[in-house]
């Protein structure tokens, strides 16, 4: 099945409350912003008001952290209903979440926990994606998470799982380049292998973020600038991807907006270089 998500080519930022004033008072030179869906799946108040104002100025992507697409016992109707209501109002570029799970039965960990790459898990994830896309009435994007644990008994690689998932459900992929690097380092696989296994015709969005060195593992902290190694992978990815939306995702130790705009300009430059190179090759 081909991916049903629309294409959008551009460069954006994750909208964080530290920058609300900048976005409301100035014309910030981004092509789109991405917000955390759950922060706005609320009854009312200032956050929804601000989002509506931002939406008048910029395309908005909704990025969730709580759908729990890998839950063995399915998705929660109330969550899907609220997300649909938000999406219907905001008319987002994309609605995305992670290839992970956070809920089991009544317990919710509020973390992006790893899915085992097995045939059974793939069937469950695909059934859940079908349900979510049916309720939302649109294709979603799913992101490769950073992971710190690989389960024994895996029947395929992460990239094979992502490719099969996109092929079976028509969902798009949100490729987090930092997460590729973090997981590759933590689990000892070659990021080139990951990139080579990704069906780029399904990729619609790219995340860039920073990480930190933990005691034994790399941690996906989103509190530092994008590392040099990740920029190199990004450059490669842009050579393989079609029109995509690239975004800097900073969640902690938030710097002034000008710093993030500078970082975004690096992404723009690398993207433009790769586009020129492709044109040269085509000529």
């Amino acid at each position, binding site marked *: 099945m081909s991916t049903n998500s629309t294409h959008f080519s551009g460069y954006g930022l994750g909208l964080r409350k530290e920058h609300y004033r900048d976005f409301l008072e100035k014309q910030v030179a981004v092509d789109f912003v991405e917000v955390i869906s*759950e922060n706005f*799946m*609320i*009854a*009312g*108040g*200032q*956050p*929804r*008001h601000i989002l509506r104002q931002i939406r008048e100025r910029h395309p908005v992507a909704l990025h969730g952290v*709580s759908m*729990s697409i*890998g*839950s*063995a*016992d399915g998705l*929660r109707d*109330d*969550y899907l209903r609220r997300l649909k209501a938000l999406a219907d109002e905001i008319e987002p570029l994309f609605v995305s979440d992670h290839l992970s*799970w956070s*809920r*089991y*039965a*009544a*317990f*919710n*960990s*509020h*973390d992006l*926990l790893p*899915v*085992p790459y*097995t045939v*059974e*898990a793939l069937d*469950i994830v695909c059934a859940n994606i079908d349900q979510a896309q049916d309720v939302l009435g649109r294709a979603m994007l799913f992101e490769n998470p950073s*992971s*710190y*644990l*690989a*389960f*024994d*008994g895996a029947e395929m690689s992460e990239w094979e799982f992502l490719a099969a998932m996109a092929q079976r459900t028509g969902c798009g992929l949100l490729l987090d380049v930092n997460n590729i690097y973090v997981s590759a380092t*933590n689990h000892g696989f070659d990021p080139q292998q990951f990139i080579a296994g990704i069906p780029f015709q399904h990729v619609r969005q790219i995340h860039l973020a920073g990480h930190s060195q*933990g*005691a*034994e*593992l790399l*941690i996906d902290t989103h509190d530092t600038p994008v590392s040099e190694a990740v920029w190199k992978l990004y450059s490669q990815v842009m050579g393989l991807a079609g029109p995509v939306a690239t975004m800097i995702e900073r969640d902690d130790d938030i710097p002034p907006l000008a710093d993030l705009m500078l970082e975004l300009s690096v992404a723009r430059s690398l993207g433009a270089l790769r586009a020129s190179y492709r044109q040269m090759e085509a000529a």
Partner: protein
Amino acid sequence: MMLADLQRDFQTWLVKAESSASLGDGARAMAGLAVYQNNYRAQLVGCLEQSYPQLRAWIGDEAFRTAAITHIDRHPPHAWTLDAYAEGFDCTLLALFPDNPDVHELAWVEHALGAAFVAQDAQAVPFDALAQIDWDTALLSITPSFRSIVATTNAEQVWSALWEGQAPPDSAMLERPAGLLVWRRGYTSCLKQVDAVEREALLQLHASGSFAGLCDWLVERFGEAEGVAKAGELLANWLASELITGIDAV
């Protein structure tokens, strides 16, 4: 290993730190599991710290952290939204601070202010909408962000001082019970201490909506002249405070 079994084992690891063979048992697996458990607990502690900043300042970092860890050990999260984890912290505080009503009231204030901040929107009724109202049949609606409890301590003064970055007063019991009101004006959450009569009057109106019923209740309590005057005074204050968000004639 079926996915459901693995997810159950992972939950047990996060909540009780009891590992299972399904999650792996080598040094690499344990390092990874430790990251997930740290993320889980840090996320919940962070949620409570963000939801109760003035309470944390009031009881101190160490006592707050102890309360947070106790709460996390006793009450694993259930809701899809992390914000909901702040609900129910009051029960843990009650168990840990059974003789500190100031702590409970301060916790209530912070949680109510947070809930009001994201409550359903509602337009306040402007004064000029009152001209044609038949007060005998009028039904008034109070803003969906409204919350109230009985106040027995000076928690309102303590919270306000802490919020303004000033030294808070010592905790003290009120001479007589009062009421704490929390609601949202526009996009700003508000806190106000009122006397017990005003709180009860507002709860009466919240329950029945009937302004005539409120007048009857106040007349019964204060007599004809004073009761009617009091009803008018209270309504004027509530309208000015944007607590009233709907007027319908029956």
